[in-house]
C-alpha cells in the first residue's frame, strides 16, 4: 500500500444525514435518527476505503448519501470540483455515469420483471451510449467480464442463484465505466462458499479498470483482505480511521479492539486462548445517542470525562486518526493479532 496519498477523488466534509422519526407526543420536538453525524474524510483515487461497523452505525447511509440516493441534511461532498449535495438532480444524473453502487441484497436490487439485458443495459440507454447493436454487444461483454455467459441476457433474475445475481448487479454497475463504486455489503447476503469468488472478482475488476471502492461491511476479516484503508463507525461517527496494516496491527480505539476480539476465528487453539473484550449492554439507539463520546455507555475504559466531553479527532500516527480521550495509553489486554 502506497504511503503517499494520491489526490482525493471525493472529499466529504461534516456530512450529516438525519431522518425524521415522529414527535414525542403531539407537541414535542421532532425526533431525529442521526444516521450520519458529522463525517469528514477523503477518498483517494485507486484505493479501497473500508467502512466497518455494526448494524445501525450509519455506514450504509453514508454510502448512499455520497451517491445522493439519500439527501444529506448538511455538509459537503466534493467530487470533480462540484458539491454533490448542491447540484441539480439533472446534473447529478449525469454524474451517475462515474459514481456507481453495488447493493447488498442481489434479489431485491434486481427487478424480477426485467430481463438481465434490460437490467444491465438500461444505463447505456439512459446515457445515450452506442446504438442498439453495440449496446447488445456491450451487455454480452459485461456479462462475460463478471463470469456469466452472454446468452444469460435473455433470462430473468429468478432463474439465477444468489451469487450469479450479485454478478449481474456488478455488471450493471460497470456498464457505463464508472471510476468510483460504493460496495454496500456486497457479500453479506451470499453463501459462504461463494464469497471468495465475488471478492476475487471485485479485486480483479479494480485492477483491470482502475476503480476506486468504498467498501462497506461488518466483517472485519473480509475488510482486512480487500481494503487499503479502514474507517470504523459507531452511531454515525468515526471512531478510528487508519491504513489497513496500522489498524489491524495496532488498533487504538477501544471499540475497534472490541470488534476485533469479537471476530470468530476458525482455529480452535486460538479460540481457546484468546481473551475476548466483551462489551456490556446493547447498541444505544441513534434516536438518542449518548452525550460526550457516543461509545461511553459500553466502553470498558469509560470515565466521567467520556460522558461529558466529545473526544477530538486526532492523528496519532501517519494517517491514523482516532476519536478517544485515552487512545494510546497503555492497556492490559493483549490481543493475539497476527502479522499484517
Amino acid at each position: 500500500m502506497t504511503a503517499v496519498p494520491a489526490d482525493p477523488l471525493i472529499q466529504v466534509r461534516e456530512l450529516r444525514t438525519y431522518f425524521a422519526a415522529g414527535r414525542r407526543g403531539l407537541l414535542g420536538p421532532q425526533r431525529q435518527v442521526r444516521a450520519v453525524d458529522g463525517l469528514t474524510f477523503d477518498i483517494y483515487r485507486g484505493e479501497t476505503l473500508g467502512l466497518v461497523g455494526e448494524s445501525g452505525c450509519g455506514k450504509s447511509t453514508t454510502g448512499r448519501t455520497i451517491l445522493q440516493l439519500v439527501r444529506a441534511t448538511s455538509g459537503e461532498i466534493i467530487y470533480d470540483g462540484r458539491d454533490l449535495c448542491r447540484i441539480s438532480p439533472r446534473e447529478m444524473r449525469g454524474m451517475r455515469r462515474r459514481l456507481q453502487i453495488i447493493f447488498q441484497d442481489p434479489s431485491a436490487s434486481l427487478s424480477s420483471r426485467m430481463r438481465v439485458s434490460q437490467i444491465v443495459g438500461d444505463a447505456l440507454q439512459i446515457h445515450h451510449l452506442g446504438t442498439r447493436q453495440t449496446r447488445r454487444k456491450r451487455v454480452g461483454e459485461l456479462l462475460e467480464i463478471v463470469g456469466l455467459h452472454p446468452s444469460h441476457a435473455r433470462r430473468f433474475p429468478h432463474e439465477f442463484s444468489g451469487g450469479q445475481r450479485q454478478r449481474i448487479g456488478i455488471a450493471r454497475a460497470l456498464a457505463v465505466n464508472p471510476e468510483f463504486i460504493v460496495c454496500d455489503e456486497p457479500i453479506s447476503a451470499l453463501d459462504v462458499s461463494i464469497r471468495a469468488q465475488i471478492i476475487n472478482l471485485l479485486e480483479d475488476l479494480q485492477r483491470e479498470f482502475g476503480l476506486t471502492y468504498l467498501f462497506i461491511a461488518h466483517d472485519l476479516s473480509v475488510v482486512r483482505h480487500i481494503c487499503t484503508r479502514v474507517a470504523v463507525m459507531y452511531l454515525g461517527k468515526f471512531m478510528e480511521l487508519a491504513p489497513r496494516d496500522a489498524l489491524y496491527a495496532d488498533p487504538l480505539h477501544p471499540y475497534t479492539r472490541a470488534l476485533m476480539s469479537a471476530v470468530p476465528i476458525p482455529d480452535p487453539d486460538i479460540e481457546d486462548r484468546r481473551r475476548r473484550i466483551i462489551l456490556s449492554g446493547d447498541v444505544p439507539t441513534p434516536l438518542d445517542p449518548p452525550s460526550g463520546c457516543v461509545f461511553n455507555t459500553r466502553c470498558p475504559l469509560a470515565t466521567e470525562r467520556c460522558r461529558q466531553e466529545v473526544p477530538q479527532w486526532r492523528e496519532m500516527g501517519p494517517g491514523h486518526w482516532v476519536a478517544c480521550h485515552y487512545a494510546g495509553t497503555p492497556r492490559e489486554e493483549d490481543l493475539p493479532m497476527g502479522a499484517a
Partner: protein
Amino acid sequence: MQEEIARSLIYAGEEDLDFPAESGLWRRMGSSLLRDRAALFGAFVVLAFALVAVFAPLIAPHSPDTQYLDGLSLTGSPVPPNHKFLLGTDDLGRDLLSRLLYGARVSLVVGILANGLAMIIGVAVGAVAAYVGGWTATILMRITDIMMAFPVLLFAIALIAITSPSLTNIIIVIAILYWTTTARIIYGMVLSLKEREFVDAARAIGASGPRILGLYILPHLTSVIIVYTTLGVATTVLVEASLSFVGIGVQPPTPSWGNMINEAQGYYRSDPWMMLFPGIALVITVLGFNLLGDWLRDTLDPVQNKLG
C-alpha cells in the same frame, strides 16, 4: 465428462442453460383453471360473450331492427318463443334473440372502451401521485376521494343530460366516474414498490422519474391491472345497462340489454320473456367476468410472489 465438469466450472455452476424463462407459467395456470369449476364457467362465459359480440351479424338469425308481421300476435302483443323466433319477440315484433346478440356488441364495446379508459386514468393518477408524493399526491388523492363520494349514477345522469346520450359520451362518462377504485389500489402498490431496492438501483444508474415509473415499477402492476380490468368490465357492463335502462344510455332502436329491459317494463306480466332474457344475459355476463376476475386474482398473486 470432463467437458461437463469444465462447463459448469466456467459458467459459475450453471447446470441447465436451456431453462425456459417462465417455466411453464401458462401451463400451470391452464391446469389450475381446469380444476376450478367456477373459474372455468367464468372463462367460458367471457369467451362466449366476446365471440357472440364480435360475430353477432353472422350468428343472428334475423336482423335486429326488422319488425316482423308474424312477430306480433293477432292482438298485437309480442310472440312467445317459437321455432322462428327462438326467444320470442318484443313489442314491435322484432326478434329478441337477434337483438340480444347485437346488444352484446354494445355491452362489449362500452365495457372494453369505458373500462380501458378508466384504467388508464386510474393507473396514471395513482402511480403519479404515489411516486411524486408531496402536494401533487395530496391534490390528486383528494380529488379521487371526492369523486368516490359522488353518487355515481346520479352524476352520470346529470352529465349525460347536459351533453347528449351518444355512445362516445357514455363511454367517457363511465370512464370519468369509475377510475377512482383503480387509482386507490395503484396508489398503494406504487407507494410500496417505490421503496424497493431495485428502484434505488434504477436511480443509481441515472434513470429519471418517468423512466422508473414506466420501465421499472409498471411491470410489477400488470397482474393487478389484468385482474381489475376483468372485474371492471363486469361493472361497466352493468353501468351501461343501468344508464340505458333509465333512458340516457344507448338510444333505441339500437338494442342494448339495458334499454331492452326498459322497453319490457310494461310487458313483464303478460310477456315476461321480453325482460327475462336480457336480464339473464346481463346476470350471466356480469357473473362470468367476476368469477374469472376472482380466479385471476387468486392465481396471479402467489405466482407474482414466487417470481418477485
